[in-house]
């Protein structure tokens, strides 16, 4: 083994394309999502291009939802929410909407501050 160590020096003779490891994590995440691996696509992701308008709508919707829930009109809320579909394939539950709005209320302050 000593002869092997001296001669071959445990060198790695293989290379990888430039920036391969920089880009690999994003490719892996994409593959996980493609395989339906259960990695959630956050509802906010597709809204990134509409931050300002969405923040205003989100706050308004949150206020409206709170009012409607307080009035015990849950059936009407569920039906009404079907109309508030930002994406034809985006169909959140009540809990997801409320969770999203709660997080977006904080994000709204960043939007107002101009920090994206």
């Amino acid at each position, binding site marked *: *083994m000593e*002869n*092997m160590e001296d*001669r*071959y020096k*445990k*060198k*790695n*003779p*293989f*290379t*990888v*394309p430039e920036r*391969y*490891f920089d880009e*690999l*994590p994003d*490719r*892996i*995440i994409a*593959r*996980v999502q493609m*395989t339906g*691996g*259960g*990695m*959630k696509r956050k509802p906010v992701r597709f809204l990134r291009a509409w931050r300002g308008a969405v923040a205003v709508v989100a706050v308004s919707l949150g206020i409206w939802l709170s009012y409607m829930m307080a009035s015990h009109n849950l059936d009407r809320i569920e039906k009404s929410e079907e109309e508030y579909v930002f994406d034809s394939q985006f169909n959140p539950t009540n809990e997801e909407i409320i969770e999203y709005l709660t997080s977006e209320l904080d994000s709204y302050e960043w939007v107002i501050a101009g920090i994206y």
Partner: protein
Amino acid sequence: MYMEEVADEYIIGLFHGQKQEEAFRLLVRKYQERLYWHVRKMLISHEDTDDVLQNVFVKIWQNMREFRSDSKLYTWMYRIATNEALNFLNEKRRKVYGNTDEISDFLENTLEDEPSFSGDDIQRELQRAILQLSDRQRLVFNMKYFDDMSYEDMAQVLEVAVGTLKATYHNAVKKIEASLKIVDILN
């Protein structure tokens, strides 16, 4: 934070604390190179390795919840990578050679055609000698010689006794030395 400094416990904690994607990204960045080179030494081809490695991380993601902290995170991932690499070779055997043991020809051809092999003639002759080994011998040899992995860690990855691993490594080295002597004589 430098990836090597991110503790496995932190990553696992993030994962179970409902920050799965963030945890997974940290995990990928921390271990992608080690797992890549482990698979690459088995498959030789960068393209095949790239494909298998992505499958490895998909499996890691899918099974992360079942990971038990009584084993090391790295040996667990290493085991997944090993199995995926072996499955790839077995599938290649089945498709190309119809279930015979002859995979070394395929791998030698891959080595000859591989554009990202930058070694000199000496490195090439060592790689050729390694390719004459069985899958298990190659695995053990690569993990011990190139990765400096302890027999105890290898035993966890391969689920084989330490004594068996030592014998396998010893036999692998003997075979490689014999193969290289022949090359020396011929040259």
